[in-house]
C-alpha cells in the first residue's frame, strides 16, 4: 500500500484525521444551528414593528454579530486563546477548536436566519395573531416552519464554511485533515498526503451540499 501512488500515506492516520474533522464539523454545526437560530430570532423579533421591538437589544446583538462576522477566522482563533484555555484548558486537540469554530460561525448563520425570517409574509404572522396565538406559538408554528428551507440552506452554507475553518484550526494544532496536511503534507513535503486530505475534504463538502439541497427541496412546498 505504501508503495505505488501514495508512498507516504498511513491510512490509519488519514482515518483518524477524517474522524477528527467530522467530529469538529458535526459538533460546531449543531451548536451553530441552535445558537444561530436563537440569535437570529432575537434579531428578528426585536427589529422594528415586531413583537419584541427593542432598539437597544437589537443594536447590541446586531453590533456583536457584525463584529464577530467580520473578524478573519485565523485571527479569531488567536484572539480567543485565553477564552479557550479558560473553558477547555488546552489549545491542542479537536475540542480546543470548538469555541472558535462556534463563535466564528454562529453570528454568520444568525444573519442568514434573520434574512430567512424577514422573508416570511407579514400577513401570515398577522393571521396567527388574529387567531389568538401567543408569541411562543408564533415562533414554533409559524416563524420556524415557514422559514425552514432558508434555515436549512443557510446551515448548509455555514457547514461548508465550517469544514474550511476546521482545516485552518488544524494548522495551529487542533487536529483533523488540515493538521495532517500541514504537518505531514507540507512540513515533511509529502505531497500525496496533502492531495488525499484535499480530496477527502472535497468529498465531505459535496456530501454536505447534496444533503442540504435535498432536504431544502423536500421542505419547500411553495
Amino acid at each position: 500500500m505504501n508503495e505505488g501512488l501514495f508512498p507516504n500515506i498511513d491510512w490509519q492516520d488519514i482515518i483518524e484525521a477524517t474522524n477528527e474533522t467530522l467530529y469538529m464539523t458535526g459538533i460546531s454545526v449543531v451548536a451553530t444551528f441552535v445558537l444561530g437560530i436563537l440569535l437570529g430570532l432575537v434579531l428578528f423579533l426585536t427589529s422594528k414593528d415586531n413583537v419584541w421591538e427593542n432598539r437597544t437589544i437589537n443594536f447590541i446583538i446586531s453590533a456583536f454579530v457584525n463584529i464577530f462576522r467580520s473578524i478573519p477566522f485565523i485571527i479569531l482563533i488567536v484572539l480567543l486563546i485565553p477564552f479557550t484555555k479558560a473553558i477547555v484548558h488546552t489549545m491542542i486537540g479537536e475540542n480546543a477548536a470548538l469555541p472558535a469554530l462556534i463563535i466564528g460561525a454562529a453570528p454568520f448563520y444568525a444573519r442568514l436566519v434573520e434574512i430567512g425570517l424577514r422573508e416570511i409574509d407579514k400577513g401570515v404572522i398577522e393571521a396567527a395573531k388574529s387567531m389568538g396565538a401567543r408569541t411562543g406559538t408564533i415562533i414554533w408554528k409559524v416563524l420556524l416552519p415557514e422559514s425552514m428551507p432558508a434555515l436549512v440552506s443557510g446551515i448548509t452554507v455555514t457547514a461548508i464554511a465550517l469544514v474550511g475553518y476546521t482545516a485552518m484550526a488544524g494548522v495551529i494544532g487542533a487536529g483533523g485533515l488540515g493538521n495532517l496536511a500541514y504537518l505531514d503534507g507540507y512540513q515533511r513535503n509529502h505531497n500525496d498526503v496533502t492531495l488525499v486530505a484535499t480530496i477527502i475534504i472535497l468529498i465531505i463538502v459535496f456530501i454536505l451540499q447534496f444533503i442540504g439541497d435535498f432536504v431544502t427541496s423536500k421542505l419547500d412546498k411553495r
Partner: protein
Amino acid sequence: MITLSKVSKIFRASGEAIQAVDDVNLSINQGEIFGVIGYSGAGKSTLIRMLNGLETPTEGSVVVAEHNISKIKGAMLRKARQEISMIFQHFNLLWSRTVHENISFPLEIAGMPKNERDARVKELINLVGLEGRGNAYPSQLSGGQKQRVGIARALANDPKVLLCDEATSALDPQTTDSILELLVDINKRLGLTIVLITHEMHVIRKICHRVAVMESGRIVELGPVLDVFRNPAQQITKRFVRQVTEPEATKEAIVHLAERYPEGKVIQLTFVGESTENPLIANLIRNFDLDVNIVQGKISQTQNGSYGTLYIHIDGKNDEITRALEYIEKQQVGVEVIDNE
C-alpha cells in the same frame, strides 16, 4: 354585537401624523352582514383591524362580542380573538402546512386535542366545499380555493364575528360571487355577524344588509343598502352606486341615443325595491295605445330588494304618452324624460 364610540386612530410616521380613522361611531347588530366601502386610503383596513386589536385606537372605545377590545391585553385579548375571526385579501395561509393542517391551526391554538381536531377539520372542509383537497398544499390551490381554506380556518373556533378585509379583491368575478354566496350561506346557517370592507359596490350590493361609506377616515353615509342605493346623499356614495346601477353607457351616450328616435320619447325608469317585480312594461303595452322599445337597462339584486335603471322608448299620440307617464309615476317608479333635442 359591535359598538364603536368616538374612535380615532392617528399614525405617527417619521414626525408626520396621519389621521387614518376620524371620530367614528358605529353599531353593528348580531347576525348582520355589514359592509364598509371606500376608496384606497380611506381608513377601512385600519378600522376593521381595530375590531380584533391588531390596531389600537388613539381615542375612543371598541366593544366586540362584549369584549372591550381597545382596553384588554395579553391572555384576555388572545381569548377574545378566538371569537373574532378574520379573512384576508391575500389569504395568508401557511405554505408549509396542508389544507387540513392550516384549518387545524386555530384549533391547536385553542388547545383542542388531536382526535377532536381532525373530526372538526373534516367538518369544516365539507362546509366550504373542499372535499378531497385536505392533503393539498396552498400552492396547489386556486385563489378561490385558498380563500375557502381561509374561511374554514376562520370558522374553526365557532367565532361570533367574522371580519373580511377585501376578501374577494384578489379574485375574478365568478370566484368572487361563489365566495360571497358562501359567506351569505354561513351567515344564515350559523347566524354569524360579518363585517366586510371593500372598494367594490358589487360586493355590498350582493350580500350586505347595511353599508357605511368611508372617506378620509370618516363615515360619511350609513344605512340599509337599499336606502343608500335609492337616495345616495353624498357625492362619493353616488359614484359608488353608479358602479352597479348605471348601464355600461353613460348618460351622454343615452342622450345621444335618444336623438335616433325623433318621434316619441326616451324615458329613464328607476326601480327601487319591490316595484321591480311589477310587470310594468307589460301593463304599458296592454293598457295604452303605444309602441314600447327597451333601449338599455340594468337591474341589480340586493339582499333586501332590487335596484335598477331602465331606458325605454315610447311612441304614440302625445296625450297617450302623458297618460302613460302619469300611470308610471303611480307605480313608485322614478321617471325621467330624456331630452332628445
